[in-house]
């Protein structure tokens, strides 16, 4: 059964990729969706087994690499953490497969698209079912590859190509840290297998090592290096720049990869490595701070963006920040819970945005929308549900998970915990503001689109709406149903898959805390309505007075410009310098070219000796003879 879950998407991908032309568009779409669908059903079954019977399984398929004591297996490892991820990945993937049939109906390369989607699902499944760091790394780079392929799916668009490469390379920077983390693990543990590593960690927790001349704690260093990988994949601040650009890809891709699954792999990694992180206070604090900063930073940027997908992308970035700071304060299960609910409502928001974009004939700028909520009621309803869930409106899924994060942070009782909780509340407010801005600008107010007639705006086809409705159900109910199982006070669900050294219970969070966030969030609705629909003047004046701040935000804190200036341009210049100066002007000039020049000069000179005149030769002979004679006489 485990084999089927993992390999069915791969088989579907291969068939659709290589024989897509022969099969025809319809068959390859149905086939891939069906295979991923079966995989999803089986995943649900496994999840049920885990839930009811504590099912777990660790299968090795065969040896991958075996060199001395470096031994790695291909494996399938099922435990509670994996089972949750299995459900998220395969279920959302199935929904997106079906949605794509509608969304890509005008595209010429449907089989290729489906093949990439299925391949992505396969890579993601190998990532979460790994029982060792190397297979995790395989899946990790594999999903990166699929992300690259799918962002650049419309290969004629230069922006899409640039974004694809950027995504891959920024991720590679993260993977660089990740790989060094793996080397370090192997060096000190002699293995890269999770269980063997985690079992030894308790013994090694005090170990200090000299790393590049600096004395550091081994576990801290490993955790930080792994976290660099997680930052790349989950688009945390400093390595986040690829995610907004990745929105150049088709919208279903954004929903699946850049919202629900791949970008959460970093969170998964941190939670999976909880037996390591638990032993390092420093690493956990770094995780919490990076998460906190990202959550805040991305929310501020989202406030002023105008591209509908970019707003949702920054929102994803921000929510991932929440997950990280949940993990950073040691509430790993809450992080996964938020990952779980987030997958539903964020995928829903993206699919909803996809419907909006479809209805507006590929318009993405929210300034050119507005006033259409009556024309596309289904889309409107879906977006509304997504937004309510995202902002944490009471009793929808986001309410349970996001508020739990804030509560846990507060109850942690440490300085970091209070900071994090504070920023969490502030960010929740910002989230509500930018989300409602999106809704109001898109659906309410005046109709601002010049390219399309108002009457031409149509609801998307059912094949797009129905899968979105499934997500909407998830966005509404996933919180209330799974709350007790995932983060209940006496839940035994997680078993050994997550290690808590000192578990925070949230028996009694103070009442003001429980009510504060929902109140703020709800009060943001009229506020946003007033600012963005009723009275635009206030904002305009505010922007004019704070031009600098506005530019700072709309340019995303100038990260792209900075990186271009620090890394990209110098790399090109240095490369050119090495080539033109180093290779051509120094090595070649003084090496082979110089040598042959010298030979030529000498031989030119040597030619002069052969004049052909007998008396020249006789003269030279005479001199030589006399030198020889002198030498013999003297010595």
């Amino acid at each position, binding site marked *: 059964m485990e084999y089927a879950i993992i390999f069915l998407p791969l088989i579907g991908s291969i068939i659709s990729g290589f024989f897509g032309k022969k099969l025809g568009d319809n068959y390859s779409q149905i086939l891939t969706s069906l295979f991923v669908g079966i995989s999803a059903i089986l995943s649900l079954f496994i999840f049920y087994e885990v839930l009811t019977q504590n099912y777990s399984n660790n299968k090795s398929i*065969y*040896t*991958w*690499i*075996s*060199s*001395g*004591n*470096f031994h790695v297996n*291909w494996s399938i490892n099922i435990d509670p953490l994996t089972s949750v991820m299995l459900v998220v990945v395969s279920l959302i993937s199935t929904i997106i497969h079906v949605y794509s049939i509608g969304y890509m109906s005008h595209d010429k390369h449907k089989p290729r698209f489906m093949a990439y989607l299925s391949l992505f699902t396969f890579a993601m499944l190998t990532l979460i079912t790994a029982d060792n760091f*190397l297979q995790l*790394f*395989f899946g*990790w*780079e*594999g999903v990166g*590859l699929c992300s*690259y392929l799918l962002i*650049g799916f419309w*290969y*004629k668009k*230069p922006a899409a*190509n640039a974004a*694809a*490469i950027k995504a*891959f*390379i920024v991720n*590679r*920077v993260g*993977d*660089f840290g990740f*790989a*060094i983390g793996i*080397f*370090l693990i*192997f*060096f000190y543990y002699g293995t890269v297998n999770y269980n063997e590593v985690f079992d030894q960690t308790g013994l090694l927790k005090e170990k200090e090592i000299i*790393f*590049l001349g600096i004395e550091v704690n081994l576990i801290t260093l490993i955790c930080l290096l792994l976290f660099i990988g997680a930052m790349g994949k989950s688009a945390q601040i400093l390595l986040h720049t690829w995610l907004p650009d990745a929105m150049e890809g088709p919208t279903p891709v954004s929903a699946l990869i850049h919202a629900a699954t791949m970008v959460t792999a970093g969170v998964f990694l941190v939670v999976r490595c909880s037996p390591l992180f638990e032993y390092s206070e420093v690493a956990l604090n770094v995780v919490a701070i990076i998460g906190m900063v990202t959550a805040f930073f991305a929310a501020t940027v989202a406030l002023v963006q105008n591209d509908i997908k970019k707003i949702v992308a920054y929102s994803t970035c921000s929510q991932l920040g929440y997950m990280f700071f949940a993990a950073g304060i040691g509430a790993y299960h809450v992080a996964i819970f938020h990952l779980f609910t987030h997958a539903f409502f964020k995928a829903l928001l993206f699919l909803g945005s996809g419907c909006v974009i479809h209805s507006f004939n590929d318009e993405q700028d929210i300034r050119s929308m507005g006033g259409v909520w009556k024309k596309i009621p289904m889309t409107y309803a879906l977006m509304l549900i997504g937004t309510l869930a995202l902002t944490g409106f009471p009793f929808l899924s986001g309410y349970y998970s996001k508020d739990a994060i804030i509560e846990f942070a507060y109850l942690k009782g440490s300085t970091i915990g209070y900071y994090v909780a504070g920023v969490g509340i502030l960010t929740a407010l910002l989230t509500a503001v930018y989300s409602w801005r999106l809704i109001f600008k898109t659906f309410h107010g005046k109709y601002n689109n010049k390219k399309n007639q108002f009457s031409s705006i149509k609801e998307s086809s059912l094949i797009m709406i129905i899968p979105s409705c499934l997500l909407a159900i998830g966005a509404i109910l996933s919180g209330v149903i799974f709350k007790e199982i995932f983060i209940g006070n006496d839940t035994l669900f997680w078993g050994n898959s997550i290690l808590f050294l000192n578990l925070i219970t949230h028996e009694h969070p103070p009442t003001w805390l429980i009510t504060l966030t929902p109140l703020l969030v709800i009060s943001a609705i009229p506020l946003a309505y007033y600012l963005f629909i009723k009275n635009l003047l206030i904002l305009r004046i505010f922007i004019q007075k704070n031009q600098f701040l506005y530019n700072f935000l709309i340019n995303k804190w100038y990260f792209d410009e900075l990186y271009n200036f620090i890394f990209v341009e110098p*790399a*090109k210049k*240095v*490369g*050119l310098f*090495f*080539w033109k100066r*180093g*290779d051509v002007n120094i*090595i*070649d000039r003084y*090496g*082979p070219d110089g*040598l*042959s020049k010298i030979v030529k000069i000498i031989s030119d000179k040597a030619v002069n000796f052969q004049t052909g005149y007998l008396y020249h030769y006789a003269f030279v002979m005479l001199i030589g003879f006399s030198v020889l004679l002198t030498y013999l006489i003297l010595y």
Partner: protein
Amino acid sequence: MNFPILSAIIFIPLIGALFIFITRGSQKNVEKNSKYVAIFSSLTNFLLSVFLWFSFDMTTSNFQFVEKKIWMEGFINFQLGIDGISILFILLTTFIAPICIFSGIQSIKFKLKEFLIAILVMETLMLGVFCSLDLVIFYLFFEGGLIPMFLIIGIWGGPKRVYSAFKFFLFTLLGSVLMLIAIISIYWITGTTDVIKLLDSKIIQEYQYLLWLAFFSSFAVKLPMWPVHTWLPDAHVEAPTAGSVILAAILLKMAGYGFIRFSLGLFPVASDYFAPLIFTLSIVAIIYTSLVALMQDDMKKLIAYSSVAHMGFVTIGIFSLTKQGLEGSIIQMISHGLISAALFLCVGVVYDRYHSRMISSYGGLVNIMPKYALVFMIFTLAALGLPGTSGFVGEFLVLVGIFQINVLVAILASLGVILAAAYMLWLYRRVIFGKLASAEIKEMKDLNTTEIYVFASLAFLILFFGVYPEPLFETVNISVNNLITNYQDNLNFHLALKNN
């Protein structure tokens, strides 16, 4: 084993070349016949070497299939034999040779007969390098390889072929002369050039340093290491596709093989002493050439520079002298042999059709050549070391190996992995993606059947060894263990000697 299978493998291509040489008749007939002979002899040879692999005993580290013929009484014996390390290179060579012949048949427009002879002679010489167990014989094969390669570049090359051919010859010969002197002095010191005996004898420490440097100068140029790498881009650019393939896939590996067999085997003390030098040069090579590759506007030059970077990993792995490092670098060499061959063939495909190697001439090829885009993508990913391709296994193990010896080197080398992604993907984007660059390239045809088979077989091997490299590990395992043990024993021996 009575049948001299190694000699057979070495000389079958030569015999094929001989047959081609004596074919007579009309131009058309000669070409047809020489094609058949070349394909037949190289494929037979491949099958024979696969048979060799199956009958190879993986449980011993001794040299197998040893053949010995007295050549000069008491001085040089024609001695052949293989162990787990050399057999992989033999397989690589016999696999790549038919591919070069197919490529040559497709793209060489004049003097095809002579071209095929050159390739077959080349194959014989390269196989000789990997089989020979006598220093002098090794030297003959090793340097003999220069001549056909020189001709391949000089006759069938591009416009600047003469300059490139001479540059290639000048660089490589310089190193070789020193190696010859070293071989002669080894004979003076030990009284033999028999490698099996030499591996057991312990050369006096004081001599080792100079001898090591002499061998190093030859191998460093061939590999090539920074700063003696500048012949490689020029040679690649001017060489015909098949020439580039041989050069990148096999010729460079002879140097890596030489490092493993001779530098480590004969001069362990010096290898230990000079390892930091190797690390430094390799790191410089990896970062320097990766950055240079980023800025190339000629596809072949870009891939050539990336080869230098990849070979940097190989030398790092070899001199890390750890199990993972050594096995990693062997796998990296095999995998780079396949990947670079494939990439040069990819360039060859578009060059045959449009006669330009400039990246800017192309763009948007995916619109007209989807199959080509697919295979090129696979090889690009393999070149940047994506897990699941053989490139990853080699690079990763090398890094695991070196990390145990020197953390800084490991970290700097890992930077090369980021840069590799940058230059390979950027190349791919500029050539394949985007709108069709010009109306002229619209006429280009997608891969034909021969090309599909060639690329499919390469892609299959790259992916297969990416997910299941076990056959390679099994083959080299014992030999590498033995190599490391001998090396350590030897070091300890000299250390003890010094302390007394």
